[in-house]
């Protein structure tokens, strides 16, 4: 009985804050709502007999990933989005309709697949961290090591991408974006500066 009450409370919390993630205009508020959603889902992990996942969710997801999001949002100082244009309204309607259809399909499939299944009571073995660890470092050892490699690659990639290019150094791969389409900054572009001088030097040579 208490379990049902806890489930309903935190499911409602997760749904409400998930809606806020999508609906709020300010990215900082969206990010903080996501923290609430993830914490509510962590509670549901505990109810499902996965305390390790709940701890990971709190430590890694809310503690590291979402804080990284928050950091970037504040670093870039992103303001509110501009008011949506009429094309945005069509897009919103289509996306909402598509989402409802997806919900119908996925929900029906999941519900029909599991409705009426009786859950066995939680066993000591299922909650045990030892059993989980034995599988992770036994059967899935290669995958575990590969995940470590993946994280290393991600760290290197993030460092290279976000590094500020020092002046005088040849442009990094990420800077080709700037070459293709110059940013609208104040001041004339180098090509525009070169234009007036080119005819004059040609004229001097003609003399």
């Amino acid at each position, binding site marked *: 009985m208490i379990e049902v009450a806890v489930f309903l409370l935190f499911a409602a919390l997760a749904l409400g804050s998930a809606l806020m993630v999508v609906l709020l205009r300010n990215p900082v508020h969206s990010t903080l709502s996501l923290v609430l959603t993830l914490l509510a889902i962590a509670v549901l992990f505990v109810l499902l007999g996965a305390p390790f996942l709940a701890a990971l969710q709190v430590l890694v997801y809310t503690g590291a990933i979402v804080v990284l999001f928050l950091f970037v949002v504040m670093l870039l100082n992103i303001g509110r989005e501009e008011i949506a244009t009429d094309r945005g309204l069509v897009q919103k309607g289509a996306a909402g309709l598509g989402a409802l259809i997806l919900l119908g399909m996925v929900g029906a499939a999941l519900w029909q697949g599991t409705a009426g299944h009786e859950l066995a009571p939680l066993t000591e073995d299922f909650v045990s961290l030892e059993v989980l660890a034995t599988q992770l470092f036994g059967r899935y050892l290669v995958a575990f090591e590969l995940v470590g490699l993946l994280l290393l690659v991600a760290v290197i990639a993030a460092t290279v991408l976000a590094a500020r290019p020092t002046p005088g150094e040849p442009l990094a791969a990420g800077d080709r974006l700037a070459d293709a*389409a110059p940013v609208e900054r104040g001041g004339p572009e180098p090509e525009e500066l070169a234009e007036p001088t080119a005819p004059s030097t040609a004229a001097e040579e003609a003399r």
Partner: protein
Amino acid sequence: MVPISWYLLLAALLFVIGAAGALTRRNGITIFLSVELMLNSVNLTLAAYSRLLDDHTGQLVVFFVLAVAAAEAAVGLALFIAIYRHRRTIDLNRINLMRW
């Protein structure tokens, strides 16, 4: 005992909310947040099935999804910083360099 279908229905709802957000929002960061929401709803599904089938594999897959999400967030946010540095915006409607 909460029926496992409730968890699955909740996960489906969360996934759909995330999908709708990813399709409608124009701010790159918010779209990213919606994708994280979708990833997490799938994690909930995996944990629920792990409980239903009394098998730890689902929980281990959640572990790997978590690690991949961390890598994805790091690289994605670095990309956003690089784009912002050049274009002064992360409004995806205005990052249309490759549109013909």
